[in-house]
């Protein structure tokens, strides 16, 4: 264990890492907004009473939940261009893979949340003359969202971590940039340790938030 740690060799390239972090944040913001928004829509389709709507939605969710994200990203990057003739950038491939995956996972969270609301709430909404869409928006979703907050926050953490997979198609996010530094400076220990710490520091508050939300909203209807 007499290794000489030399973090200076990483920090001289701080701008390279900053570019990477910016790439990670971009992926995270785009994929979580599209993924959670799409997940809400997909979750409601999945909950629909018509089989013509709920079955295709179920198929979508199952396909994307039961295949690895890495396979999806690589499929979009290498296979989709062959099929459609459209060149896809690493950024687009990563966005497609991570977003479609997040839609599938968050759809299940939304569906579970909507289902967990007692039927009387629907009936009460109907009794005062609300349409299906109105009761969903004004009565059901506001209550369901509270219960869904902890799992949705965990999903957000997953999306942030998943963004590292974009490095396999050479999109310059944090890990990809650390790989570059490690291959210039032969300092994999320091480079990867710094990246691990960066993720830890960014995500620890979010993880603590999930604990807090679980205590606050997890069980009761406070």
């Amino acid at each position: 264990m007499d290794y000489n740690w030399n973090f200076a060799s990483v920090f001289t390239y701080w701008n390279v890492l900053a570019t990477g972090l910016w790439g990670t944040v971009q992926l995270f913001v785009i994929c979580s907004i599209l993924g959670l928004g799409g997940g809400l829509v997909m979750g409601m389709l999945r909950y629909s009473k018509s089989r013509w709507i709920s079955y295709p939605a179920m198929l979508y969710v199952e396909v994307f939940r039961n295949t690895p994200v890495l396979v999806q990203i690589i499929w979009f990057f290498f296979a989709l261009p062959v099929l459609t003739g459209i060149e896809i950038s690493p950024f687009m491939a990563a966005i497609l893979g991570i977003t479609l995956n997040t839609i599938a996972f968050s759809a299940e969270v939304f569906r579970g949340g909507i289902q967990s609301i007692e039927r009387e709430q629907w009936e009460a909404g109907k009794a005062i003359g609300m349409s299906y869409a109105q009761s969903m928006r004004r009565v059901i979703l506001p209550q369901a969202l509270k219960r869904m907050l902890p799992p949705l926050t965990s999903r957000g953490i997953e999306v942030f971590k998943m963004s590292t997979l974009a490095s396999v198609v050479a999109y310059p996010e944090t890990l990809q940039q650390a790989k570059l530094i490690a291959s210039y400076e032969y300092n994999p220990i320091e480079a990867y340790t710094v990246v691990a710490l960066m993720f830890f520091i960014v995500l620890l508050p979010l993880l603590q938030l999930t604990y807090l939300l679980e205590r606050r909203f997890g069980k009761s209807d406070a």
Partner: protein
Amino acid sequence: MHEWDFTATLADMDLLMLGLWNTIQVFFLALAFGIPLGLGLALGRMSRIPVLSQLCSFVIEFFRTTPPLVQLFWFFFALPILISVQMTPFVASVLTFSIQSSAFFAEIFRGGINSIDKGQWEAAKAIGMTRKSSLRRIILPQAVKRMIPAFAERSIELLKTTTLISTVSYADLMFQANELASKTFRPLEVYTVVAIMYFFLILIFSQLTIRLEYRLAKTGEGTLR
């Protein structure tokens, strides 16, 4: 429009099957090490000794907040230099995924143990059991049943995360697919076949766990009603 042609892919199916086998090996080894380690971390975190509990919390939180790919790179590229041992992709993968999944299993164990009614602990104490034996004989058997769905979900996550080991050149299914795609120049067919293989592998696994849940539901308390 592209003309689908699976002949080249199917001709080399044995390569993909070998990859599948390697994937399954890493998956089961990581489960075998990860679950006991997770139980240990969970018990440590719930321990009344502050140092132990804080240490276990830190390990769990660190491995939950860092991306598995970063962990894998660290164990594969950094650890060997630090402790000067030879690291094979296989050992690095098993090591990474055992520890990574143990952090998640620990949280499942903790949730399951906490979900057991306090009266059960008191009842065990009343008939003279120590904390340790009530945990083993009363609490865990009940808690484990409730944890099965969460375990299944986490194991499926683990199975999907094993695709990352292709990046350190371990010949898992994903790695073999990359090889085959560059050999046959047919990425569309190769990656489609591989996606289907993963889909069915995970489908079979999740069906097995659903069956297990039904069996446990029959013998009393379970999550299914």
